[in-house]
């Protein structure tokens, strides 16, 4: 019934998609990527705003980790890497990191390959070559312990923490029970729940890392927002019935279920443990998704109550509506209606529906965000450019 399949990679990981990724090293060559994308529709062409102009060690670390992490993502079968030549994350610097993934990679540089038009032509030809190559690969039987499923929430409403995240939490527990790994981030949305998350840590070291992560998130929100930091729990939240920051954050972290927390990973870092994992990443959806994808997640569940259509280029994102109104109003964007819990559907039945849908998506069925092309790719920086 729940048989799942995927594509085996050189390193022993398994993808549930077989994408040819066309990736720029730096925003300067985004136009080249856009030209390739118009010519080779089946390739996953992403653009971004980074690659240079931020020299701090943390920003450089994130830049390399996210770009190489996207290449390593198991859903990516092969890569066309397009660089400029003089950027920080140039192809020479990136190549050693992406080579470890053992995937076919073709590299071009606009300054060496004849300018933008010629590079686009070469890049498009390479993308076609790689597509032909990867299309010969067959799906094979996949075990649940090869899956890293990410849980995300965004555009939340008062019901997100009552319906959608509760259902996703039940699913997370089911997945961990099957041997899969579940990961979620959004450290700002953990503020006030240190006592809960640290207690569930597998050992004292992990508990300490959880405490420090949440402390940093709280300090950062105070440093940036000053007196406005109290808006982390806003009057609107209170009108919706949230009485404390702990209550609001419980609604967020519940999406990860109740399993033991085995590891805290940095933003975009790949877990080495299994079970439930926390990522020290930001609450902003776009940035958070990139971190989770770079951590190697092949599939994401994403709850929303106000309704966001956002998906991600290299992974299927299953949208879970927290209320029936938004599910109906944005039917083309929503995959699951957790609002049905309010109408009396038992949680077990909803979770069963989510498992069925998940199995079909793993086996190739497109999510709404995939079908609609709603990909977003952006990632975190800590400093402004210079």
């Amino acid at each position, binding site marked *: 019934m729940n048989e799942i399949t995927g594509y085996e990679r050189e390193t022993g990981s398994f993808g549930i998609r077989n994408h040819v990724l066309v990736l720029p090293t730096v925003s300067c060559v985004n136009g080249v990527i856009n030209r390739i994308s118009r010519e080779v529709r089946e390739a996953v062409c992403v653009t971004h705003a980074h690659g240079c102009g931020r020299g701090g060690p943390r920003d450089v670390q994130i830049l390399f980790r996210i770009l190489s992490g996207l290449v390593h993502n198991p859903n990516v079968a092969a890569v066309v890497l397009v660089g400029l030549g003089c950027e920080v994350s140039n192809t020479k610097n990136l190549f050693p990191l992406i080579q470890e993934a053992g995937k076919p990679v073709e590299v071009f540089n606009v300054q060496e390959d004849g300018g933008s038009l010629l590079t686009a032509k070469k890049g498009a030809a390479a993308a076609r070559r790689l597509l032909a190559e990867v299309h010969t690969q067959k799906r094979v039987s996949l075990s649940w312990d090869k899956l890293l499923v990410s849980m995300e929430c965004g555009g939340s409403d*008062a019901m997100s923490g009552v319906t959608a995240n509760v259902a996703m939490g039940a699913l997370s527990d089911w997945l961990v029970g099957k041997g899969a790994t579940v990961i979620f981030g959004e450290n700002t949305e953990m503020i006030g729940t240190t006592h809960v998350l640290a207690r569930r840590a597998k050992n004292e070291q992990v508990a300490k890392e959880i405490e420090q992560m949440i402390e940093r998130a709280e300090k950062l929100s105070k440093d940036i927002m000053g007196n406005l930091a109290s808006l982390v729990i806003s009057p609107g939240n209170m009108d919706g019935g949230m*009485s404390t920051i*702990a*209550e609001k954050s*419980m609604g967020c972290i519940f999406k990860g279920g109740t399993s033991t927390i085995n590891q805290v990973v940095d933003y975009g870092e790949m877990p080495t443990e299994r079970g439930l994992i926390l990522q020290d990443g930001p609450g902003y959806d776009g940035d958070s998704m990139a971190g989770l994808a770079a951590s190697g997640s092949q599939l994401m569940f994403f709850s929303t109550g106000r309704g966001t259509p956002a998906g991600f280029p290299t992974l299927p994102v299953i949208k879970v509506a927290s209320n029936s109104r938004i599910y109906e109003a944005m039917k083309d964007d929503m995959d699951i209606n957790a609002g049905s819990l*309010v109408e009396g559907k038992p949680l077990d039945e909803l979770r069963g529906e989510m498992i069925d849908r998940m199995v079909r998506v793993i086996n190739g069925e497109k999510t709404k965000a995939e079908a609609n092309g709603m990909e977003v790719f952006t990632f975190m920086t800590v400093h402004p450019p210079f």
Partner: protein
Amino acid sequence: MEHNILVIHPRDNVAVALRTLAAGEQATGKEIAGFPALEDIPASHKIALRDIGAGEEIIKYGETIAVSIRDIKKGGWVHTHNLESRRWKK
């Protein structure tokens, strides 16, 4: 019968109103015999599942989310007027 409240975790002493409940209306949920709402409970707000004494923990998601600052009767509205954050007390 229509379920108009949801208990998220078996340990919880509050439930979530799935729609606005009027004072006197029967609150009903899965495995919960009806009991009257003592006052209006706005949609997505909390209703007490049992009497909660002053100083007792408010449990939702199976976890402590606040501490009550006055006695709350079963069926009462649980919000910022009768609880405080334990976190802010420290």
